[in-house]
């Protein structure tokens, strides 16, 4: 009997792979995950789940019974220690050897932590990445407590919004000149700075953390490089994530900023695929690694199609979203390499969209409470149309007509 398809890592990419795989062919497969849960949605963790508005079971992409009904072999709470490509098998920490016909790596990424020397292991310092992270910290999100957020990226900003809603005092540190600097244009940073300040968040940009300090192992506060002291009961570290590529590296697979894959999500070993946060690929001459549901789901889906013999390549247009207070941010495209932006006013004061261009070419759109810019902008980008900045900036321009090439 042929060995099963083995999936290492039980997140969004794995769930998407399995759903398509089951629908198309369904040879045997085994899913191995380190956490005790079936694949679940991570985006709500820093939003509704932290807020306590969503029960845990509703995070699960499909219920546990579904995997059983599909005869998927399940190994949760199980770490893989090694891949042996020559033997076509993986070895688990519990001592099991599992043979594979094809292997799919969906090992995801891990939240970066502050080093112990900076106080990273004090009691009261946490990251937001898993159900366990939230379950450990949610009870401490109480009105009046002081939360310090290190890092002004999406996770930090989403957590700030939840914390304000729950009545915590929130201070946010960003070491770059502006929040969201790594991922968005200044106009988008300006929007979110104003939004959060309007909700009472203290934002310090160009602020470098020197260390967190405590007493008897318990967090007390933070000292900045400027010498300023900020009291804190809780510190959320939101300074990005690193791809989990150690297994792949040890197995000799080509790695770059992630596990290197081709247009078919295939690694340097043709029987091993990688999908989601852990993988990197080339797009428009640049090596990119995406941390998004879209990328994980689309890559997982693509691998299932490839294994079923479909002639498909990974060309999906990236998209992304974030919810903060009453703002829905929707992003389409990749803004890397842009050299100018255009602001399109929306219908309300809190709605606008930022259009990213490289010369004359439209690359991406950040839409804040502006779903039309997102929905029609997506069609515009997919159609390869680059409307002039003047047209985009004019609120009277009919985006739907533009999307239809009129």
């Amino acid at each position, binding site marked *: 009997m042929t060995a099963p398809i083995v999936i290492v890592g039980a997140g969004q990419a794995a769930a998407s792979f399995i759903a398509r795989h089951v629908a198309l062919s369904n040879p045997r497969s085994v899913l191995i995950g380190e956490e005790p849960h079936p694949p679940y949605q991570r*985006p*709500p963790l820093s939003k509704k789940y932290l807020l306590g508005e969503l029960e845990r079971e509703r995070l699960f992409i499909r219920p546990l019974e579904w995997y059983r009904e599909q005869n998927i072999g399940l190994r949760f709470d199980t770490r893989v220690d090694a891949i042996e490509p020559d033997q076509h098998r993986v070895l688990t920490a519990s001592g099991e050897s599992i043979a594979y016909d094809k292997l799919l790596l969906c090992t995801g990424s891990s939240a970066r932590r502050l080093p112990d020397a900076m106080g990273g292991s004090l009691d009261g310092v946490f990251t937001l990445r898993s159900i366990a992270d939230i379950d450990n910290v949610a009870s401490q999100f109480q009105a009046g407590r002081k939360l310090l957020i290190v890092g002004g990226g999406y996770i930090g900003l989403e957590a700030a919004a939840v914390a304000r809603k729950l009545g915590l005092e929130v201070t946010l540190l960003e070491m770059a000149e502006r929040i969201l600097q790594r991922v968005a244009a200044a106009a988008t940073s300006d929007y979110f700075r104003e939004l959060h300040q309007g909700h009472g968040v203290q934002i310090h940009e160009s602020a470098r953390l020197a260390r967190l300090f405590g007493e008897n192992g318990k967090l007390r506060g933070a000292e900045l490089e400027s010498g300023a002291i900020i009291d804190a009961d809780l510190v959320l570290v939101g300074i990005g994530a690193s791809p989990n590529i150690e297994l792949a590296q040890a197995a000799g697979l080509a790695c770059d900023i992630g596990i290197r894959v081709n247009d078919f999500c295939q690694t340097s070993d043709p029987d091993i695929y990688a999908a989601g946060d852990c993988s990197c690929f080339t797009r428009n001459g640049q090596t990119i690694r995406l941390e998004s549901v*879209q990328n994980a*789901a689309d890559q997982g889906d693509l691998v299932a199609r490839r294994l079923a013999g479909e002639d498909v390549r990974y060309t999906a247009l990236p998209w992304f979203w974030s*919810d903060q207070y009453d703002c829905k941010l929707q992003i389409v495209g990749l803004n890397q390499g842009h050299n100018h932006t255009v602001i399109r006013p929306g219908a309300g004061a809190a709605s606008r969209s930022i259009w990213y261009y490289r010369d004359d070419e439209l690359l991406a759109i950040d839409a804040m409470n502006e779903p039309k810019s997102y*929905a029609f902008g*997506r069609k515009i980008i997919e159609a390869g149309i680059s409307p002039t900045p003047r047209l985009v900036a004019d609120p009277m321009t009919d985006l739907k007509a533009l999307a239809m090439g009129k």
Partner: protein
Amino acid sequence: MATITWKMEDGSEIAADVKNGLNLMEAATANNVPHIEGECGGCLSCATCHVFVDPQWFAKTGEIDDIEDTMLEMTDVEREDNSRLSCQIIASDELDGLVLYVPEPE
């Protein structure tokens, strides 16, 4: 509790009892309804949970807000008068017996 029926283009059907309060995208994926993906988890960003509502039931499924109305413009199969994003339809006793038709992208 509501019994919901999803009808596919090939004539096959899936029926399931859905707890009040769950949205019908979640219910569809939990019950293995094909072509309903719900990638964004129901936050109106992906338009991959598009359904056609049986016209007799359409009014009972609730109002379409501006965001849903816009997102319905980007479905794979073009929207019709009875289109909804099923993540925005919430199961309730009033929807017991609801029939949804699932569009199949090319």
